[in-house]
């Protein structure tokens, strides 16, 4: 099992969700986060006082997938979240040691 963590542009969420649903992914966790990478931030000016806003709003998706599905998920996720402009975000993958569905007690791939 792998945990796919993607940081994406907020307005791309629906496209990503649709793309992953189409290939049989039925769950994800989304959080509103702030951060910066190559896009850096922007400047806000209030009556001449300039503030550099370094952290931009992004969405962080966590999707747990079976190892054999990983390549397909990566491909679909990247295609759906991409605009080609700087600031599209990143995808990270880490191994999952265990998974449990709390209600039924199912474990590992059955719990996803």
């Amino acid at each position, binding site marked *: 099992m792998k945990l796919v963590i993607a940081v994406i542009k907020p307005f791309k969420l629906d496209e990503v969700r649709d793309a992953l649903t189409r290939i049989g992914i039925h769950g994800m966790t989304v959080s509103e986060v702030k951060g910066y990478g190559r896009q850096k931030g922007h400047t*806000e*000016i*209030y*009556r*001449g*006082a300039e*503030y*550099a*806003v370094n952290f931009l709003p992004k969405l962080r998706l966590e999707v747990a997938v079976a190892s054999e599905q990983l390549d397909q998920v990566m491909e679909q996720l990247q295609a759906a979240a991409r605009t080609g402009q700087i600031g599209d975000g990143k995808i990270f993958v880490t191994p999952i040691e265990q998974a449990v569905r709390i209600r039924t007690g199912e474990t590992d791939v059955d719990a996803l």
Partner: protein
Amino acid sequence: MKQAFLRLAPAAIIIAATTPAFAQGSKIDAADTAWMIGATGLVLMMTIPGLALFYAGMVRKKNVLATMAQSLAATFLISIVWAVIGYTLAFTGEGAFIGTLDRIFLNGVTLDAVSPLAKTIPESLFMIYQMTFAIITVALVAGAVADRLRFAAFLLFCVFWLLLVYVPVAHWVWGGGFLGTYGLIDFAGGTVVHLNAGVAGLVAAYVLGARRGYGSDNLAPYDLTLAVIGTGLLWVGWFGFNGGSALGANSRAAMAIVSTHLAASAGAFTWMALEWWTRGKPSVLGMVSGAIAGLGTITPASGFVLPMQGLLIGIIAGAICFWACTWLKRKIGYDDSLDVFGVHGIGGFTGTLLAGVFAVGALSASPETPGGIPGLLEGNPHQVVAQLYGIAVTLVWSGAVTFVILKVISALVPLRVKQEDEVMGLDVSQHGEAIQ
């Protein structure tokens, strides 16, 4: 003589009503009274909720309630002190420097009492109309020290500043004191309200010192939508502020409202255009700041100038206040949190001066002075001298006395909240509440 009579028979409203009370030919006019009741409501609305929203929208989220609390507290505290002693000291008698105690506790403000300063409306109405001006002036000052002034210190400041700064200046300009007698024209408060509050704000910002993180941290406003709503309420309320200063339902009131509205529009447009040109974007905060600058600046001149001169004053106001808030402020290096000096101080100064330049005699013509009060452009250079004299006196008195008041208060209670309370926010540290 009328006042003396009423004091001798304080409970005898019926007797007074059946007695020739209008010794100076005063007669209460229904239309004037109706308009002034409406105008009083409009001006009160400028502070709550107008100024409360305008200011609260420009501070950080952790200080929103504390900022609103200042407008609210100014409203109820100043109202009480004004009725008890402020009004009588400002608006009775003919003393050059201060009024009398004739109307202490509103003694003698009976059903048919009329002030010689407003001969066609009940004195009770004149008293409460002027009360709303005192309220907003004190509430304006607080913006300069937003985010750091201790609430208890603010309450003390309200009382001291009202009685030692606002009341004397109001008396000098409007209550029969030496500035009015000298010839200063100030229709609705360029000196009394705006320059007065702006200078006091600047002094307070110096005495308290800059906000923690000023110049380094992000102090961006929490919610400018509140500031836009507040500006709308202030703008409309200003019709009562300037239009009501005609003290009657007449053409002069209407003309003042037109000049006021055009000055606000021109100020907003000018600030927006300058900001777009110099900073690349026309900000919402810039538009509302320009509108308030135009409104503050036209205040002393409204009622003395024609609409197109109001428009011109608005353009000048937008440009000069933009310059004051973006360049002058940085150059001098004070932290006037919400630009009370940059907008109201500079605006009040500019407007008071321009009133002396643009005044059109016909607008202020009366049976006693058929030619009215003309300005420089109508060949009366002395009017500019009178305006500069009024500006200088207000500036020095407000600056010096505000400084002394703050020093006295700081001996009683610290002016500034503790550093950790400032970081935590004034909502929690001063009021035990927070916006979730």
